[in-house]
């Protein structure tokens, strides 16, 4: 059997008009949704998936984040500092970040072992979720407008201690 039947008139029987209308309507609905979700990328640049990524070995990244954590433990991170945040079984390194409100920070985030999830949750209703993959780093530029406390919870299953993997960002005025 060939891919196309031999003669057009053998198979060409038009659909009824109500069928055609509904098929067209369903395709139009799909296209409208596709356009809206694309348009939103341009309309609201504040809530976007970061597009800057690079490859990094998990052990190496863990080291970078650990020395960063040692350097800034308990102190506010100055403007212009590149922040390293590593997700490992079962903690965030560093566990706590002190940032200044109104300042844009460059945050590099990756995993030291398996898949993790970066879920930023603020009491102002902020919810922002990204995947954290070993071998691949995300570069984010984040700015908090107001002082407050934001939790960082792991939301991708990463082993038996997954539920205890909580960190936080303290935004100071």
């Amino acid at each position, binding site marked *: *059997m060939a*891919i196309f*039947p031999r003669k057009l008139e053998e*198979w*060409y*029987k038009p*659909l*009824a008009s*109500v069928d055609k209308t*509904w*098929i067209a*309507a*369903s*395709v139009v*609905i*799909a*296209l409208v*949704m*596709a356009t809206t*979700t*694309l348009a939103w*990328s341009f309309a609201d640049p504040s*809530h*976007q*998936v*970061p*597009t800057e990524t690079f*490859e*990094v*070995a*998990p052990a190496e990244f863990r080291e970078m984040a650990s020395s960063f954590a040692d350097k800034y433990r308990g102190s506010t991170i100055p403007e212009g500092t590149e922040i390293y945040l590593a997700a490992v079984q079962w903690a965030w390194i560093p566990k706590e970040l002190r940032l200044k409100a109104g300042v844009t920070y460059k945050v590099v985030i*990756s995993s030291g*072992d*398996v*898949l993790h*999830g970066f*879920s930023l*949750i603020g009491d102002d209703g902020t*919810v922002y*979720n*990204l*995947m*954290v*993959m*070993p*071998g*691949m780093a995300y570069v984010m530029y984040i700015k908090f407008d107001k002082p407050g*406390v934001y*939790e960082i919870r792991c*939301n*991708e*299953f*990463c*082993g*038996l*201690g*997954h*539920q*205890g993997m*909580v960190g936080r960002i303290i935004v100071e005025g």
Partner: protein
Amino acid sequence: MTGSYGVEDRFARITITFSVLLLLLGGIFGLAQVINRAPYFELPSFLEVSPKTYYTFLTGHGVFLAVAIPIFWITGFTAYLAPRVLGKNLRGGLLRLSLLMMFAGAIMAAAAILSGRSAVLYTFYAPLKAHPLFYLGAALLVLGSWVFAAAFFLQYLEWRRENRGRGTPIAVYGLLTTFIVWIEATVPLVIDVLKNLLPMSLFGAKVDALEARTWFWFFGHPLVYFWLLPIVTLWYYMIPKMLGVRIFSEKMARVAFIMFIIASTPVGLHHQLVDPGVSAVYKYLQVLLTLVVASPSLLTAFNILATMEMGGKARGGGALSWILKQPWGNPVYAGLAVTFIVFGIGGLTGIINAGYQLNLLVHNTTWIVGHFHMTVATIVAVGYIAATYSLLAELFGKGVKWPRLALAQPYLWLVGILIFSFSYYIAGMEGAPRRMLNIEGAGGPPIPSEWIYTLQLGAVGGIVMSASGALAVLVFFYSLLRGGIAVARIAPNPHPEEGDPYHPLLENWRLWIAVAIVLILVAYIPTFYELYSRGLAPVSPVGV
């Protein structure tokens, strides 16, 4: 007529009974989870589970209910229905081989899970490592289902040679679509298992996490349509049959199935919208294709509702009272209609998950859990069970012992799922993570108060859903013991009034499979080119 399908019927009786047993086991796991993850639920100590047990149950819940049941139930259902519709036998040797492989695979995977050494959850993302039997069992189960698919395709091709110029009956049309999508889905799974997961688990080989995850979702999304398509088939086949009318549009039904074949697979990246290392352009391309695959669902919604309206009016209903004139008192019809309604809501929330930006908000939250319990869980626990009620008479020769309880089951589920899923939707929008044992016990900061009442309410819904599942299991096994009455006839009517319409373009499987392959290549070649040309970043496997 029944006598001539002894081999097929034995196959179906075994796989369908096994599915109901798995429903019992997976359902118990589900109940244990939903009550253990609700914050501040005072549980008696024998109901509290450790993290290891919790994540083992969670793995079993997903693998048994969402992978094993569909494979066993759908092959069994097809073995029952396809021979009766086509009037042809399936090859007995292939059926036996397939049954052997599927059971061997299921037992291996179940042993790996229940021993507590494979708590990697249903998505088994590398580099988290499970016991090798977990991957081997999964692969064998899938290969066994391929042997069944081969038997089904051979039977159909034979029928087609003998019936040139006849349209494929809608029931077989839908089941063929199901198995074509299944093959599309499982090729990437088998590649992932052989290339990445088995070497990782057996020899500690390094694996690229993003590559493995991309193969997984290449499989994981069309898997969703494998669950769904037999139920879409049953909507198109059983609802008009029970109402005594024809499908509103036979052609549009077939157009919908073809769209499922074309668009089910090249959409997996919508599960990876927030993954690092995949270009935003390729992600968006698959968002677009995902929204295209919403079209056949919209076509189905329209066509089935129009069929219900025709049926209701034929039974004396008016402009709106046709809704009341549906056979709501029949357990099979009630089950299919409840699945239709709940799937409709669940499907709409799926469009939100697939939205390029909205995914940032709901990714890996309980929103997703709400979504797939309205879709797949309802399909399994109400849809498959509804069809099983009618098989109790025809296939098992028993009938339903307690038809009133069987009727209560889908409605009880409807109540439970509405409470459960809407609570989880709200919790998810507030950021509550999925796949997590008792959050408040983790020693972190206090949890947002919105999570507390929504997750507790979710547990209430989950308990009602479990009660509905328990009713289904009880009715099934008690009916097997005691026998009862036939509730609906699922086998084709002996003398259909009209033949199935013949549209050569809609019967041209080769063309549509070719289109599907082209679309899959268009959607995935750029992604894999990006991965491989950049160079993989393999990482060492890690235990749970």
